[in-house]
């Protein structure tokens, strides 16, 4: 239980950081970390199906798609 609370706390910090960061690559990486922690929490909530989908799509593919988009546009937020 304490472990899950720590994870939720880290997740909130990372989510706020993703909004604050001006470097979009950092923001995307923090988003991926939020997805990863979400999938761990789903696993603890006994939803392994959702956890797998979250880990593969949220932390893997979405991050890559965001990074491709950033590479083709601009890296820093104005």
């Amino acid at each position, binding site marked *: 239980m304490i472990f899950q609370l720590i994870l939720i706390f880290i997740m909130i910090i990372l989510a706020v950081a993703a909004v604050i960061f001006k470097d979009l690559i950092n923001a995307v990486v923090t988003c991926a970390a939020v997805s990863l922690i979400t999938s761990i929490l789903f696993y603890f909530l006994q939803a392994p*199906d959702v956890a*797998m989908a979250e880990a593969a799509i949220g932390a*893997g593919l979405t991050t890559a798609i965001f990074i491709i988009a950033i590479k083709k546009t601009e890296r820093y937020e104005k």
Partner: protein
Amino acid sequence: MRRIISLIILAVIAVGFILTFSQIPFGKDKIDVANYYIKKGIEETGAVNIVTSVVLNYRGFDTLGEVTILFVAAIGLGTVLFVEKKVKEIASKSEDRSKRASLILRTGSHLLFPLILLFGAYVFVHGHLTPGGGFQGGAIIASGFLLMYLAFPKQSIDKKSFSVVESLGGLIFVGIGLLGLVFSGYFLTNFLPKGIPNTIFSAGIIPIIYIAVGLKIGFELTAIIDDLLGRSR
């Protein structure tokens, strides 16, 4: 003024949420639908993984809708990015894109790629036995292809064969649904024998549909990545 209005709206929404959630009996044994699935799911569908039995048997038509949404999204993305590609091709001919990935990435992806494909296939073939299924397995396969794209910047997939497999996956899904209509009278009915639970040849149509969906989703997401990188010939 705007801040005050937005605060009021937020307060209204918060009150609505609190009133709604206070009505739901969390953690209590009162949700009839869930109880029905847990008690009768294995017996009625033959799938040990109850999530799969809901996704493909009780709510199979919704899954067909989800697959269609992803298909339309992939088509839309391909259409939008196709216009841009024509312009880019002329530009990219002048600049030399001969950057190579690092040795670690190349060797690692050579080793990992077959294992990732195997794991993805395992996840969607065993969708009715273990956690996971077509969507998860497809996403895992697509992430394997993504790794290859990162490691080998000059190569790309054969788009035509990929779209053939993708279309076949969709066709098998709809075809099995129509066969259910022919044999049992309802679209997407389980018309095959249910078999013994916990074995791989059980649960009737569920494994067949999940294999089709897994291949479809995996190749579709790979095609989306390919479109975004703008690399195919």
